[in-house]
């Protein structure tokens, strides 16, 4: 006679597990990683490997020696953080910068709060912002000065061609710089390297993940197809950025860049598809998710248009991360309403 298992219902479980979900996110990020490897070669491989390995290592060490719990490396969340961090850094970042980033992401932003599921802020973004504030030169563009370091090859002529003209800045910082010098938007946009097709398929600068919007879109579609995420956050971010930037552009098209450029340039796509949709740091209900997305969009455009930084997606997502506990107080619509008192 078999020894029977007895448990309360339900007796079966769906096919999903944390590990599988995280695996799906890694798969969805692969196109973006591959594109950056295609354009930057060894540099991108170096970046991704160092980032992922150091994230795993920090998670393992902290879990083992500080929290003294069971190892949680197996749930693959550290790999996701590692890849996302890599995509948020410039390709030629030195190894120590990546390791510091991994330490900030895993050690400070994630494990301090109690590990997976407990953190308030998106670990990869916290790392990016900490690095951006601490090492502004390394984090913005200058790395692209250096075709001679050997990091950039493969499509050398294309990249180098734009490098000459733009001094290797990201499109956004470049535009901001030019605008500060009194050049009008129309004139800036006519400079090489800023056409929509280039932004869509392979923009010339920025962090590894901002290279190709199409690659990110592919990953996003995969996530939607696998029902890993719902589209509400991403859509509301994109639409808000488009609409809000569009309003500013219509108001004064010499001072503000056009909405399409705002959506395609910089980190909006990466942020909307992969950073803002992070389960842990986004709201639970559809209503909350839409408010969250709109908030990110508005803050992003505000920072871009009026702030000191050329890019505001990271800050916008982190700011909205802080509102998630509040947004989670929005209760979903109940099925059953209270019976009317007779």
């Amino acid at each position, binding site marked *: 006679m078999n020894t029977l*298992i007895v448990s309360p*219902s339900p*007796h079966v479980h769906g096919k999903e597990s944390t590990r599988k*979900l995280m695996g799906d996110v890694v798969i969805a990020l692969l196109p973006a990683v591959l594109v950056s490897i295609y354009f930057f070669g060894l540099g991108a491989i170096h970046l991704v490997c160092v980032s992922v390995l150091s994230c795993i290592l920090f998670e393992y060490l902290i879990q083992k020696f500080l929290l003294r719990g069971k190892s949680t490396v197996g749930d693959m969340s550290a790999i996701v953080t590692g890849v996302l961090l890599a995509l948020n850094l410039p390709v030629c970042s030195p190894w120590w910068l990546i390791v510091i980033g991994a330490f900030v992401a895993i050690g400070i932003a994630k494990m301090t709060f109690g590990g*997976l599921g407990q953190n308030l802020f998106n670990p990869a973004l916290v790392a990016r912002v900490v690095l951006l504030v601490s090492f502004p030169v390394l984090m913005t563009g200058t790395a692209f000065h250096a075709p001679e370091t050997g990091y950039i090859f493969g499509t050398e002529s294309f990249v180098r061609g734009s490098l000459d003209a733009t001094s290797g800045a990201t499109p956004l910082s470049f535009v901001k710089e030019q605008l500060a010098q009194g050049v009008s938007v129309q004139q800036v946009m006519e400079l090489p390297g800023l056409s929509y097709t280039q932004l869509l398929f392979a923009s010339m600068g920025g962090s590894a993940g901002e290279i190709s919007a199409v690659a990110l879109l592919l990953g996003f579609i995969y996530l939607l197809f696998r029902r890993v995420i719902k589209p509400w956050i991403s859509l509301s971010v994109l639409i808000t950025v488009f609409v809000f930037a569009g309003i500013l552009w219509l108001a004064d098209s010499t001072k503000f860049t056009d909405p399409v450029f705002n959506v395609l340039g910089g980190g909006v796509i990466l942020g909307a598809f992969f950073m803002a949709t992070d389960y842990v740091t986004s*709201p639970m209900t559809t209503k909350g998710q839409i408010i969250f997305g709109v908030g990110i969009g508005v803050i992003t455009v505000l920072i871009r248009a009026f702030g000191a930084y050329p890019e505001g997606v990271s800050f916008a997502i982190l700011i909205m991360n802080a509102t998630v506990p509040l947004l989670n107080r929005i209760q979903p619509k*109940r*099925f*059953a309403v*209270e019976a009317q008192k007779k």
Partner: protein
Amino acid sequence: MRTFRMGGVHPADKKISQNAQIEKLPVPKMVYISMIQHLGAPAVPCVAPGDKVKVGQVIGTPTGFVSAPVHSSVSGTVKSVGMINDLSKRPVNTVVIEVEGDEWLETIDRTDTINRDIVLDQKQIIERIKECGVVGLGGATFPTNVKLSPPPTAKPTCVIINGAECEPYLTSDYRVMMEMPEQVLIGGTIFMKALGVAKCYIGIEENKPEAIKKLSSLAVNYPGIEVVTLKKKYPQGGEKQLIDAVIGKKVPSQGLPVDTGAVVQNVGTAFAVYEAVQKNKPLFEGIMTVTGDCSKQQRNFVHRVGTPLSFIMDYCGGVPEDAAKIISGGPMMGKAVANTDAPTLKGTSSILFLTEAQTKRQPEGNCIRCGKCVEACPMGLEPYLLNKLGRATMTEELEAHHVYDCIECGCCQFTCPAYIPLLDTIRQSKATVMKIMRSRNSK
């Protein structure tokens, strides 16, 4: 195609026993007829050891309004009356009968003819259903006559017959619809007459096209009956969800389903009501499925109430070697069997064998706040939050988040990627909160 408005999950269908015809299960040597066959007050045995009983004879009389009589399912001698453990190993007052022959009460019509004319009037129908001990066979085993006598404030407008059978594996309702379609339709007509309504819907999920076809083609002869095809989604067969799916009305929180005007009855109940009203046959037989991926046989049976589960399992080739869990009912809401010697009840719908790989719970991980439970909850609750509050026993907060709305369908736990036993905790919290609310209301 219609379905309920929010939540739900899609467990694998697994209707592997759906083509097995309903067979008559042999009568065992000894039956154990429990006095708790229904929701409400247990019946009281009215026989003593040594008494001779016939098939269909009353052996337990109801106590109170929400209760039902219990009939003998065999003929023979009463061996004993006393506490016998049920499938959850809880002692239940049980009448044990040693089987001798198979002598039925003469009043029962045992012919195969289908009696289409309903001669009884409204009052007589309800009285007959009560006498025959018919209870809801969809799972809750609520006495049917009580459901057919709604409070005077409620105004029933339609009957909904539940043929959704949204639980994976189970096929007994499907077989009933396939083999006794006319009886089900007559049962529906009886419900309409008993409630004085003119409309009856039969809700069937799309994964049973044969049944939909069969019932639709026959339903033209039965005025007022309409077959509704429903999208396949669990928990479509839940009373509240089915009403929403079929007529688009929401049962109010803590209200009665009849507040929406709909009275829901299971397909099996419709058949039982047909037998009670048209054939004068009390409910002492049930239709059940023996199934499971590892099960040696896939069969559907008519069993006599009180047959030990072990007898049925032996008849189907014994417990499979790799079966780790036996479930009475479906895998989403059924009860795990702790005592295989326990007898079947009126509402027993299946014996389901699951392997360890299918059913063993994985170690619980951290909540990653993915919101999948919120999305899956058909009642619009926040299971992750209820789980957290429940573990901290914050009863006031739990009540504020409507834990009492939970229908214990298990969608949240089914879908949780971190394998958190959400429903386990919520069920406990719900019981605690309901207790507090009841004591407050009684003050």
